[in-house]
């Protein structure tokens, strides 16, 4: 069994380490991986593994929230918003930001390698307390500069509160400094001004942060001072990012003589109002990369509806009890829903819309 293991390890090393292990040896000598000075086939004396061996990238594999309670002394357990952290690391190194080593087939628990007390034979491997605190505070110090224990630890005997930040696609972490736009000056022979309407890309075009941001560390987006949140990509990197969607565009479409105007749907000849303005592009145009021209027939999106089943809340106004009973046409004269409703079928002139509402606004 032991031989089998050793063989597997060697085989794996041969496969992955063809260049690094077999030819030149790792950067820092054998001690990088081997604890003893004469590793043999039967006793390779491998230390726990170096930080770069992690591959799992499927967020669904991870739990939403974890109670870390292995080493409670002063405080109660730490409720750790796992999913949220996993999502954020999509912009950095992914799961391996934390899970820097895994056995094949699953996540290895921290405590499987990091003992409660540092082992004398392997002083380099932090104990469990050190591993957690180095990992967590590494980022938390960097982005929030807040090191108070209570940002993670619950005081003894306190209620387990709901996590402050909700996760999920498009969620935004407190303290995020997202620029509205970025403007670059380029030396390109044509136009010299390149504009990125950043907020439009994330909020309207629905581009996930991780589509553009990789390996960037937390403080790049989360920092107290805005001036510190300036991502600086190389020219090549910037082109690669933009080209991942805009490959078909010519240079002159981005490199302009002056700052590009923000996209406005009105310029297409079809100004969007209220409800439609809040939608992301892809709700009507499908895939980000290849916009399709939607039909102007409302029914192509809005399923046929009838006045008996219509739920007025959908408009952002929940009708009160008396108005729920009222016939649509009393207010929406001639079933014309594009003009303001009228109240005077029932009320005196002192009651008008929108000064008085037949219910409550829900948004």
């Amino acid at each position, binding site marked *: 069994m032991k031989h089998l293991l050793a063989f597997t390890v060697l085989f794996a090393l041969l496969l992955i380490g063809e260049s690094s292990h077999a030819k030149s040896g790792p950067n820092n000598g054998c*001690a990088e991986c081997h604890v003893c000075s004469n590793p043999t086939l039967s006793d390779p004396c491998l230390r726990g593994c170096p930080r770069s061996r992690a591959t799992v990238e499927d967020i669904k594999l991870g739990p939403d929230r974890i109670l870390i309670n292995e080493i409670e002394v002063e405080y109660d357990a730490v409720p750790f918003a796992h999913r949220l952290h996993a999502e954020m690391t999509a912009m950095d190194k992914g799961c391996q930001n934390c899970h820097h080593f895994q056995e094949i087939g699953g996540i290895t628990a921290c405590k499987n390698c990091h003992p409660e007390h540092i082992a004398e034979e392997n*002083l*380099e491997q932090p104990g469990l*307390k*050190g591993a957690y605190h*180095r990992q967590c505070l590494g980022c938390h110090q960097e982005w929030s500069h807040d*090191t*108070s224990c209570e940002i993670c630890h619950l005081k003894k005997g306190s209620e387990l509160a709901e996590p402050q930040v909700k996760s999920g696609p498009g969620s935004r972490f407190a303290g995020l400094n997202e620029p509205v736009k970025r403007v670059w000056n380029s030396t390109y022979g044509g136009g010299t001004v390149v504009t990125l309407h950043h907020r439009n890309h994330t909020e309207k075009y629905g581009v996930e942060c991780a589509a553009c941001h990789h390996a960037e560390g937390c403080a790049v987006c989360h920092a107290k*001072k805005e001036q510190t949140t300036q991502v600086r990509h190389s020219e090549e990197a910037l082109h690669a990012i933009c080209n991942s969607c805009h490959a078909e565009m010519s240079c002159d479409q981005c490199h302009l003589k002056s700052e590009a105007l923000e996209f406005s749907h009105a310029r297409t000849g079809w100004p969007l109002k209220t409800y439609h303005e809040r939608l992301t592009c892809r709700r009507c145009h499908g895939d980000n990369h290849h916009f399709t021209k939607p039909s102007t027939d409302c029914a192509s999106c809005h399923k046929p509806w009838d006045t008996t089943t219509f739920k007025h809340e959908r408009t952002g106004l929940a009708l009160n009890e008396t108005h729920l009973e009222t016939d649509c046409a009393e207010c929406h004269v001639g079933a014309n829903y594009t003009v303001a409703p009228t109240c005077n079928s029932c009320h005196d002139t002192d009651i008008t819309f929108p000064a008085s509402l037949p219910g409550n606004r829900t948004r």
Partner: protein
Amino acid sequence: MNLNRRDFLKFAGATTATAALTSLPIKAEATEHFTGHPDRKGILVDTSLCIGHNCRRCEFACAKENYLPTPDKPPEDASVFDQRRRTHPDQFTVINRFPGRSEDMPVYAKKQCMHCDEPACASACLVGAFKKTPEGAVTYDASVCIGCRYCMVACPFDIPTYEYNSALHPRVRKCTFCFETKLKEGKAPACVEACPREVMTFGKREDLIKVARQKIARNPDKYVDHIYGEHEVGGTSWMYLSPVPFDSIGMRTDLGTTPYPELTRNYLSAAPLVMAIWPSFFLTLYLFNKRKDQIAAEENGKHKEESA
């Protein structure tokens, strides 16, 4: 007379040299380099990891372990860092803040006795109150101490402090490496155990040097390429890694690698031969200590780091 320690050492050195020239030739003191007990323990302090503000768990743990008063400012109080603090009879270890690589990331450095391999304090002590134990600690025995405070003069790190406020049995006070309660049994000191980020690694000194080398090799951008204490003053049990140059985190970089005792040993061995200079030697020390008392009296209560 306004002498500081370095002037004093220079002065003392010069007197010795003059004595050597003018009186009997002194047999060159064999500079037998002390290699130390091979298994002696040490601590590696990685200052890049220290939390500092909101933590100072090490200071509190040290106070508890050594029956010292609890530090008066709580961990949340950032004002402790406004002044650079030094060790004190009531506090064997302090965390100081220094500018780091960016304004947002200061470096916090723990200060306590370095537990030198060849302790200057021990060789300066006339009655042998200080000892380097095989485990690595430099211990102090108050029962033999005569209160001359030569140790305080001799220590290159400004560590030993004196209980000026205690009229009856004033003692010299300094970090003990938790020798009696922990180290003797091979256990890590209280401050090390208390540290949430394992800033301090406790282990065989020799292993720690390897660990430190590995850390620097793996993260050349993160650390200055130097292990402070590996060779300083002949080597210390407590060693440091830092992300910024050591002189910018309050560590002296002018000490050289010659053990301090060697500098003084030549002098002390010469002394009996040149009784003529004894009076001037004592006069110097006397004046020096008087001056120190004066400073101490002036500064009593404010535990300020004095700029030597």
